[in-house]
């Protein structure tokens, strides 16, 4: 069992690197796009609200595997050229996770007392400043624990890229069986690594939660 891990450290390193790239790449896209879409959903522009709502409801009711399917098999046909599967996987994860980020942002905005927004408007702040100076700084603290949950889910979702020829911890089994390793040992190690990574993120979550706790 130990041999499956220590006999192939090069491959495990590459697989872990694939997972890390997917996690941070997808997370960065999700965060930027999610904040934009979340902002659109509470904005004074009706069309932006509608676009944000349609995007969130549509993508959240689409299986992630279907999004990967579209990116892995559909996009190469459309662009008619060589495509970078890792890049496509990062975009698929980012576009999918962005909807959860947007919904978490919106839920965070909902936790800020009404009086805060009213007071901000009373001193004459426009929507942009109400959000950036008053609401979001307060919403951020309430948002951090659920946002970490979104990222834990993202970490676990990186494995879906395994079905679409991207080397990561989810697909290492196929490479290892070519080297004659036992699938049970390999997959148990993958499961252990994921439990460890999730525990790490959960620990970070409770640390941040304690530090940013809202005193109300």
């Amino acid at each position, binding site marked *: 069992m130990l041999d499956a891990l220590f006999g192939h450290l090069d491959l495990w390193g590459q697989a872990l690197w694939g997972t890390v790239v997917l996690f941070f790449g997808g997370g960065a896209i999700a965060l930027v796009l999610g904040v934009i879409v979340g902002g659109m959903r509470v904005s004074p522009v009706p069309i*932006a609200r509608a676009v944000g709502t349609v995007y969130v409801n549509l993508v959240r009711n689409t299986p992630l595997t279907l999004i990967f399917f579209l990116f892995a098999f559909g996009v190469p046909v*459309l662009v008619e050229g060589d495509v970078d599967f890792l890049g496509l996987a990062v975009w698929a994860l980012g576009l999918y996770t962005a909807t959860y980020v947007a919904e978490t942002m919106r839920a965070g905005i909902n936790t800020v007392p009404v009086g805060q927004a009213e007071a901000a408007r009373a001193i004459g702040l426009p929507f942009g400043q109400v959000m950036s100076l008053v609401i979001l700084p307060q919403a951020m603290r309430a948002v951090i624990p659920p946002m970490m*949950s979104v990222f834990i889910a993202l970490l676990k979702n990186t494995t879906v890229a395994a079905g679409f020829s991207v080397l990561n911890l989810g697909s290492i*089994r196929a490479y290892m069986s070519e080297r004659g390793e036992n699938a049970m040992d390999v997959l148990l190690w993958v*499961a252990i690594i994921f439990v460890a990574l999730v525990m790490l993120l959960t620990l970070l979550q409770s640390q941040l939660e304690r530090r940013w706790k809202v005193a109300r």
Partner: protein
Amino acid sequence: MSQASVLYDVPGPRAIARNRILGVVTVAAVIAVLGWIVWRMAETGQFSASKWEAFAYQTIWAQILQGLQNTLGAFVVAAIGALALGFVLAIARLSDHRAVRIPAAIVTEVLRAVPVLIFMMLLYYALPVLGPRLPPYWAVVIALIAYNGSVLAEVIRAGVESLPRGQKEAGYAIGLRKSGVMRLILMPQAIRSMLPVIIAQLVVTLKDTALGFIITFEELLFIAKRLGSAATLDRPIIQSTIVIGAIYIAICLLLSWVATIAQRRVSASPRAAGGKRPGNAGGATDTQLLLTQRGVDANTGNAVGGGGTLGLTGRAPDADDTADGRAP
């Protein structure tokens, strides 16, 4: 949103003009993305009749329906199994006996931390090493039961723990046993307030059946891939993804819609406050608990649920915003 938002004032002439410009920019961005896709599709001949011809055959639709039946079959079995496992794990974790509580907690946490796909692969690729060879259907169903069951267990436990302490005490005071308190007092209230979250988790279960594609379970995406690679049908991969994707999204939207209705009914009901009452977990005093039960927030004296926060949509925190690590 019919009522004016608290986040901005009613727009004046300049704000209306600015909002129009922003609206035009948004529409332009959306049209640019959609236009690029349609342009590429036209350029690569995706609108030609031969690419769509596949969907004029009855036998093709019979295959798609078979795929749909496999997807829904796996979902129904997995959903029932996950609910059963969820209740068992939740009740075990709420047990007074440490010997029951701690193993249940470990099982729940581990099952929640392992990605569903890895669990499916363990069942499908790794179990034959030990002996039994599972068909992909059972690998999908068992993995979904294990993962969603553990998530539902946490949801149900959170529902029970958010109930005021007085509920349990009153149950004991009228002479019920532990099982009676759980079955007659706590569970009905917890299920009622958590119903939207439970249904939302079932939507996740439905979405995750698509992972079966990766371990060769013949569900909808598998059919889409097979159709899309058929040379005799001119390889309609884009077309089959569009058709199958529409079916997938339609059934997920349908189930989400049920969750929304449940959410509305729960938050409209005076009997279940949708977990909005502070429970006894926060160390509230008995006075505060009694006041909350009368519908008054002890800290402010305001009626609970009367829009104390920025209730932008006028509903309880979204069903999908539970604080646990639920995989979308």
